């Protein structure tokens, strides 16, 4: 099932920067580099875990991939098409393939909408409405019709009227009329919509509810009538109703109690296998990630520092940050006494991240070069990617007695 070279999503050099505005003139006072150049490929049918501490940019990656946030730079190929190049028209049918489940099930559900309607909403947005068909053609024509006379009219006016104020006003009026029609046309645009009847919608909603373990009678209830775990199931049903192939799960179990969390994790695992889904699972909890994911990417301050398969990463973590992160996790067994790596200080601000390797300010093993040169994310053997100057593949380090090269040599398959 998992073809190693069949990538459903290919992120190349993705950057998402947020400008901080300040002062009376709202000038840019700083740039938060939430995501600063990441490359990541997701194979079809796998669960990729994206793990990191708060503020490392993992949620921003999830949203930028779905174009819920505009990326500053980079390319995101979904099924071979660059998502960031798509116009609203071409993007809409693609959106059906990609869904998201949010962290907080309470705030992500409308408290005044019955959950049946909440789940059906996605289908209704993507539904082909025949009565709109002639109107949308008409609107498209109207759009053209306003565009052509706009330019002709302006040229004519430019010759006749030498008064810049009137000209400016006319440009404004005509421009807003045109953009009004354009917005209307986009709203009523039916390209790529699906044909579905009311009864089919109802059936799909019931199917989705059944898939996540809820009952038919639940459709007429409001979100407050459900427990936290059930609400998260509703969130998952809402994502499933459009039959997507790819779902971003943004911390779906962080707000849940442990006994409920395990129910939802088992459900996600079952659904992924039954429906052959590809999941991007964003979380800060390493134990949860280990339970669910096939491959794991570790993020630190807007960069990916390590990518490896589950077995490989947990048996043989390479990047000093990953090692510290793992040793910081409390293990529910009082008998395991481990040597703790306690990191000094806090995560630096993404407003002013450290130069070169971003982890060098807190790294125990940092050497001179770490503050000068940024280490690239390279394969250090067995598809284990790591961005660290001290972890090099064997070929680059001829001295065989180095600890890291011995490790990568020993590590099986």
């Amino acid at each position, binding site marked *: 099932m998992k073809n190693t070279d069949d990538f459903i999503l290919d992120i190349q050099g993705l950057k998402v920067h947020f400008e901080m505005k300040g002062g009376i003139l709202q000038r840019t006072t700083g740039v938060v580099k939430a995501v600063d150049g990441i490359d990541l490929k997701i194979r079809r049918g796998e669960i990729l875990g994206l793990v990191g501490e708060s503020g490392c940019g993992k949620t921003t990656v999830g949203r930028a991939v779905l174009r819920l946030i505009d990326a500053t730079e980079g390319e995101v190929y979904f099924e071979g098409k660059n998502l960031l190049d798509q116009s609203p028209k071409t993007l809409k049918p693609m959106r059906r393939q990609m869904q998201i489940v949010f962290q907080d099930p309470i705030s992500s559900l409308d408290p005044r909408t019955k959950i049946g309607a909440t789940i059906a909403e996605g289908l209704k947005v993507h539904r082909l409405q025949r009565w709109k068909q002639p109107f949308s053609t008409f609107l498209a024509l109207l759009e053209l019709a306003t565009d052509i006379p706009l330019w002709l009219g302006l040229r004519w006016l430019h010759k006749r009227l030498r008064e810049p104020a009137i000209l400016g006003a006319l440009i404004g009026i005509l421009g807003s009329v045109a953009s009004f029609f354009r917005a209307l046309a986009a709203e009523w645009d039916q390209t790529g919509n699906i044909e579905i009847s009311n009864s089919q919608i109802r059936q799909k909603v019931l199917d989705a509810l059944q898939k996540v373990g809820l009952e038919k009678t639940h459709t007429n209830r409001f979100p407050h009538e459900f427990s936290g775990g059930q609400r998260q199931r509703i969130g998952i049903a809402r994502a499933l109703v459009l039959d997507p192939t790819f779902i971003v799960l943004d911390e779906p179990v962080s707000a849940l109690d442990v006994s409920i969390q395990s129910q939802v994790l088992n459900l996600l695992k079952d659904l992924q296998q039954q429906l052959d889904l590809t999941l991007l699972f964003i979380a800060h909890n*390493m134990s949860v990630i280990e339970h669910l994911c096939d491959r794991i990417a570790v993020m630190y301050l807007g960069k990916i520092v390590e990518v490896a398969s589950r077995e490989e990463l947990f048996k043989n973590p390479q990047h000093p940050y990953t090692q510290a992160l793992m040793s910081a996790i409390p293990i529910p067994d009082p008998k395991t006494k481990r040597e703790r790596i306690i990191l000094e200080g806090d995560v630096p601000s993404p407003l002013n991240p450290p130069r070169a390797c971003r982890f060098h300010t807190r790294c125990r093993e940092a050497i001179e070069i770490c503050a000068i040169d940024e280490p690239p994310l390279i394969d250090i053997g067995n598809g284990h990617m790591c961005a660290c100057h001290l972890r090099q593949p064997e070929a680059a380090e001829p001295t065989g007695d180095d600890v890291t090269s011995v490790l990568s040599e020993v590590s099986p398959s």
Partner: protein
Amino acid sequence: MIDKAMQNNGNNSSNGEHALLEVRGLKTHFFTRSGVVKAVDGVNLRVKRGQVVCIVGESGCGKSMTALSILQLVDKPGRIVEGEIYLEGEELTSKNRREMSQLRGSRISMIFQEPRSSLNPVFKVGKQLLEVLSIHKHAIAKTEREQQVVDLLRAVGIPDPKKRASNYPHEMSGGMAQRVMIAMGIACAPDLLIADEPTTALDVTIQAQVLDLMRKLRDELNIGIIFITHDMGVVAEMADIVAVMYAGTVVEEAPTESLFEEPLHPYTQGLIASIPIMGEFKDRLDVIPGTVPSLIDMPPGCRFASRCRARIEHNLEKCLDEEPELMEVRSGHSVRCWLYEEQDT
């Protein structure tokens, strides 16, 4: 670690007769329009000096309300309806407001979950710390108090404490703000520190720092700590004694190692089995079926009966009709379950 704690206890009390804190049959109910919410319904707790007692349970099980009841910070429509709380033999529930407010902060102090929302955003952290000292230690000269603020900040591991004292809460990170809260908690050298999910809002690497600090303070100051959490991993690292709460009552109480080695109550067993443990990959996680019953109309009998697999396996009828008492099954290990009734007698 437990041995060490035991030794400490030995120094302070001979046979555990004078525990630092003893809670007996505590009941805190909320009288709402839709009924009486029994948030805390019969909790017994015992904390000795130099000991960390962890209260663990899921949201809504009453663990935070137990802490607030000890400090008598329960707001209307809730109140303590039954039970006694002894701090070194002194009864607290009969104390009036003035006596309680003298006690709070000086002998018992509390650290809350969200450090940012517990600190006042418009005052410098140094000033907020000074306020605690001014209230409880007004006999000391002001300059000395100011010096103490800096010392406290240094004690909780804040680098450059003099400069940091003039920071506002928003200028600090979550971990730093929680350190300030801890400094505030230990400012008057209390006997008992109650920490209500102090690391839940923090990242794991920062959590490791804060847990490390709290352990150090426990050893240095020889105080008793009630540590409230929902994270079994944190419990395993911090606790000497663990009390597992479910729907308003303590269902199991045991020394940490005994609890993790052999959890007795079916709820504790389910809880421990349902956590994904790093390094121990399982294809499927165990689950506890169903959800917690409503605190307004609790069914008669054992509160966990409706979700309990052991009840069905052992075909116990009693569970649905009669609520079991907390009984000591082996030394220090008590459980509230009918399964262990025969062993007890």
